[in-house]
């Protein structure tokens, strides 16, 4: 596809999105073998076990929370939200890359997306699952949250309050989760058919067969399939942008200095993409090593993701500068104090760490040698994830702990249970992720096939 224009002009083609020499067969067997085999790399087993331990930690923490109430956390009256909402926003942000890659890049006809979109989407689903947990548990009484947050006729004759950003959240996040799941499953159908036809054991074949719904690759089906898939992509794109916009409303609708600002929607969305791509890198780099997918997830992919990370990182950093400028330009004493307090107050360490992680570290990506060094990218992506977590910490905690009346200023100190719940969800996420790569194709086989030269039809305009 981009080989055609390449020959026309004299410009050097970028590295290929798939290493040469592959056939339909080789692609199919390489990817499906990860699942359709008895043996797993040791790395997979160890990681899954560790992740599973943390998952149990989460279960313990949450049960204890339900038993005693959120008093076990460090939240208090100036700081009503802390780790709970920080984690929520952090996970939602991570959950953005998947849909973005599969939807927006699809619309932009970025064919390099094909070999990473599948597990990026999976990542989205699991991140959203982690995120959804927090709005439910942060009340300490999730049974009521489920009981009252959804609109349905009831004996009290009373309904949710649709002016509240939290209700928008409920709709945005659940819609996002559902649509992502649909999108992901639709994409899986043809590959499930492949598994159905390749699996050895009869039961395995029956299971994949049932999930494949009897897909048989008919051209008429393909045609509708492509149509629907494109429409889904078209709808997911505004959706993915809306979700973090709505999440940012949780703050910008509030009147707290540091929350009540108009730049939040764009700056949050950029931050989400930023965090999302960082997490994709964090996952892609070890996975491609673990399963020798260097052929499919090539340096080109890593570099492109690095570039997107750099761009979004710059947008986020611009957001920080804008906040400072607003504070100065607004001539509003509360805003001014808020920024000064962030930079010099008791939580200054978090602000400056944030600037370091999100502002400085990504600048290294200007350098091609670092941008194309998987190890550095891995480290950098971890730092960015930490930075994005800190960003939410700064926005939520340092804004709340000193708002309007000095008499009610206070400090927030996390407890053991704050940390255990957070790390628990990371275990939850990783467990799901690793189980996913074990049972489903982590790379979209049928789309990779279309990348092979063999799939090009003479006379047909390249698409």
């Amino acid at each position: 596809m981009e080989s055609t224009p390449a020959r026309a002009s004299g410009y050097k083609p970028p590295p290929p999105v798939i290493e040469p020499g592959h056939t339909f067969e080789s692609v199919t067997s390489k990817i499906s073998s990860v699942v359709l085999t008895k043996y797993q790399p040791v790395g997979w087993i160890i990681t899954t076990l560790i992740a599973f331990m943390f998952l149990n930690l989460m279960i313990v923490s949450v049960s204890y929370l339900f038993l005693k109430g959120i008093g076990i956390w460090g939240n208090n009256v100036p700081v009503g939200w802390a780790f709970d909402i920080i984690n929520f926003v952090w996970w939602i942000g991570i959950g953005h890359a998947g849909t973005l890659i599969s939807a927006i890049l699809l619309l932009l006809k970025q064919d390099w997306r094909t070999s990473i979109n599948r597990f990026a989407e999976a990542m989205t689903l699991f991140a959203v699952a982690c995120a959804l947990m927090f709005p439910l548990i942060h009340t300490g009484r999730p049974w009521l949250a489920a009981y009252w947050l959804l609109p349905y006729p009831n004996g009290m004759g009373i309904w949710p309050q649709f002016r509240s950003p939290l209700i928008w959240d409920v709709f945005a996040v659940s819609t996002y989760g559902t649509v992502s799941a649909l999108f992901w499953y639709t994409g899986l159908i043809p590959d499930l058919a492949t598994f159905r036809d390749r699996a050895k054991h009869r039961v395995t074949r029956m299971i994949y067969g049932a999930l494949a719904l009897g897909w048989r690759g008919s051209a008429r089906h393909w045609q509708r399939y492509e149509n629907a898939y494109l429409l889904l992509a078209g709808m997911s794109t505004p959706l993915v942008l809306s979700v973090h916009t709505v999440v940012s409303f949780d703050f910008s609708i509030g009147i707290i200095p540091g929350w009540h600002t108009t730049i939040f929607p764009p700056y949050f969305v950029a931050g989400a993409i930023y965090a999302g791509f960082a997490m994709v890198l964090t996952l892609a780099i070890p996975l491609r090593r673990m399963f020798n997918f260097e052929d499919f997830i090539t340096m080109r992919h890593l570099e492109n993701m690095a570039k997107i990370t750099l761009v979004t990182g710059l947008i986020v950093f611009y957001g920080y500068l804008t906040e400072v400028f607003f504070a100065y330009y607004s001539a509003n004493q509360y805003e001014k104090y808020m920024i000064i307090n962030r930079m010099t107050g008791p939580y200054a360490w978090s602000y400056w760490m944030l600037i370091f992680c999100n502002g400085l570290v990504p600048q290294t990506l200007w350098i091609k040698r670092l941008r194309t060094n998987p190890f550095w990218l891995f480290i950098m992506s971890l730092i960015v994830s930490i930075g994005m977590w800190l960003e939410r910490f700064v926005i939520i905690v340092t804004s709340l702990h000193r708002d309007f009346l000095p008499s009610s200023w206070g400090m927030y100190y996390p407890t053991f249970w704050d940390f255990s719940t957070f790390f628990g969800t990371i275990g939850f996420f990783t467990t799901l992720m690793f189980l996913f790569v074990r049972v489903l194709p982590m790379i979209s086989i049928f789309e990779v096939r279309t990348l092979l030269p063999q799939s090009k039809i003479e006379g047909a305009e390249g698409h």
Partner: protein
Amino acid sequence: MHREPAVPKLYGLMAEFDDANALVAAAKRTYAEGYRKMDTYSPFPIEPAWEAMHVHDRPVSFFVLCGGIVGMIGGFGLCWWVSTTAYPLNVGGRPLNSWPAFIPVTFELTVLIASFAAVISMLALNGLPMPYHPVFNVPSFLRASQDRFFLAIEATDPKFDPARTSEFLKSLGPKEVNEVPA
């Protein structure tokens, strides 16, 4: 799985190719030959293949549009009805119909219903789920989901005649031609 009766009814004939280009070429010729009840099977979407068969139906888009409209009206309607009619309450001195605040929910519901419409209509129009299909009777059809390309002409096609159709198919230079028992 128990066997079918000795002389099975015929679903149609199926030619197997190992190259996408061949499939497209074959499809074109078959269509030109006047066959209509035909279909091609491939491990990945090949636009020329359905263009060759002159398949152009876009009802999915229509259903998505409907879903979107339903979602939008439903979403705003819900917010509006709840806030102004079901239990009107003075919330922070805001008007009962604070329509700007209802936009997010409206939008989300629009997308949600539309997406469901897309997937469900796609599956329904494709007649899925359909775990059983005659074409699966062809042993080599296993590779239709991997690296082989198939062209089938159904027995119900008016021009269909077991012998002549089989001849015609062979003339397309397939790896082999199989009968597809119904």
